[in-house]
């Protein structure tokens, strides 16, 4: 039980960020956040409500594609996950393209609901495993969703934390900066700095991200693998293998 793979590690890291949350929604193509959410639902004995958008399993929505956004606008969704082809130090997200829009050099799928969810969901967790200077840039080429807003703009929501393959950062809305709070086992602060294109704060001594809790790892393999397989069968097979 002390052995774990990268996905299991990240699932447990994300799960801790959901501590105390009452309702988390999980968007499309989010197997790791989805597994973390389903695990925390189990850990909290259902005190955490999980609403998956993808597929029919654990998907409570019955009012069409708009319901996720309406629900978030009503203030009923406390946590959500976003990513970004580029993310900068002010937590601006680019999901559209690099280069000078509209003349993009590399086009990505598009902003999805980020330009809205980032404003209305209190705890948006940025999940972006690839930790490189290609992703974490000084300034995004296109702001799909801004990390912060001017005073007077309605904004109950925004960035909460960032989880990558190297570390966890938390976002400070007042300072408009990320703070490195832990580096994953075997990684170093230097490695994080080398691979991050923006400045961030860090304590003098940066803790190591906790390894997966054994009882959670067990739960994950025994039960959550089967549950996430309903939405992401290939992911479940790859990560939890024979256990599913």
């Amino acid at each position: 039980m002390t052995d774990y793979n990268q996905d299991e590690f990240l699932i447990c890291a994300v799960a801790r960020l959901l501590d105390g949350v009452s309702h988390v929604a999980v968007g499309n193509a989010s197997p790791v956040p989805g597994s973390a959410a389903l695990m925390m639902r189990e850990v909290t004995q259902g005190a955490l409500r999980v609403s998956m958008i993808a597929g029919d399993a654990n998907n409570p929505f019955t009012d069409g594609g708009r319901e996720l956004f309406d629900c978030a606008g009503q203030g009923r969704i406390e946590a959500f996950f976003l990513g970004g082809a580029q993310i900068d130090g002010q937590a601006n997200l680019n999901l559209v393209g690099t280069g000078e829009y509209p003349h993009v050099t590399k086009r990505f799928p598009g902003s999805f609901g980020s330009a809205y969810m980032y404003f209305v969901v209190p705890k948006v967790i940025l999940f972006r495993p690839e930790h490189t200077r290609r992703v974490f840039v000084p300034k995004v080429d296109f702001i799909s969703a801004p990390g912060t807003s001017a005073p007077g703009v309605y904004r109950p929501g925004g960035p909460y934390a960032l989880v990558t393959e190297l570390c966890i950062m938390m976002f400070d809305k007042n300072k408009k900066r990320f703070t490195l709070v832990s580096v994953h086992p075997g990684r170093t602060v230097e490695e994080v700095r080398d691979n991050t294109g923006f400045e961030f704060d860090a304590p003098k001594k940066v803790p190591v991200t906790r390894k997966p809790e054994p009882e959670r790892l067990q739960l994950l393999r025994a039960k959550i693998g089967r549950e996430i397989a309903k939405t992401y069968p290939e992911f479940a097979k790859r990560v939890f293998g024979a256990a599913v």
Partner: protein
Amino acid sequence: MAFFKDPDALVQDVPNGALLVLPPDYSLVPMAAVRALVRKRITDLHLLFTPIGGLAGDILIGAGCVKTLEAAALSLGEAGPAPRFSDAAQSGAIAIKDSTCPAIHSALQASEKGVPFMPLRGVIGSDVLANRPDWKVIDDPFDPEGGPILLLPAIKPDVALFHAPLADSEGNVWIGKRRELVTMAHASKETLVTVERIQRPSLLDDPTMAAGTLPAMYVSGIAEAKGGCWPLGLPGHYTANLNAIREYALQAKTQAGFDAWLQRNVIDDQGQMAQQQ
């Protein structure tokens, strides 16, 4: 309301240059009808997705049917980026109105409700907004501090097109919980639907079915098309064929590869592709 013999007949009168709205890949995508649009060599479409596009969009773009695209995103999901869309965006071959999911839902609801615009929270400060001269930000008249709020003009598509599991002989269509299709139909001038099958009894006579039924008054034309979502899935009927989609993603990496794929799977196919499921 008229019944047509097949998807090709159903879409025959969709004009070049139409504003066409399609469902997202998680809903009921009319792939058979989209192939029929390609076969009729439709051009200059203004293509709108409610709110994100996938395979259908990439095929229409690759086949040169699209002039402008409005969507919150376009991708092949698990099969990766949409290659023809990416190329067209990078080359500037199509004009793109980048949006965000709730903006498209709200703009269609504006047409549904017969109002000229709808407000939306968020979006302010984004480059999505900066690149939409058709959107307006006003001071919220109900906010004592007059904070800004975004107004989205109503979008009224010429044609809504989707696939559904079931219709009845009156032209009512069962869409289940896929209510974005209801709003698409309410908002559009014409609604064309392919269905797995057509039953005689009215869907409205069964209170359980009525709850998920789009009434015939919003439906212009219906054609039966078994496997009409294929290679995408129709929940409860068939699952997506991921291999076929991955094969497409691979072939369509180049325009030449896409052209060959299109010839084989759409042009030569004459509507038979779906039967392969």
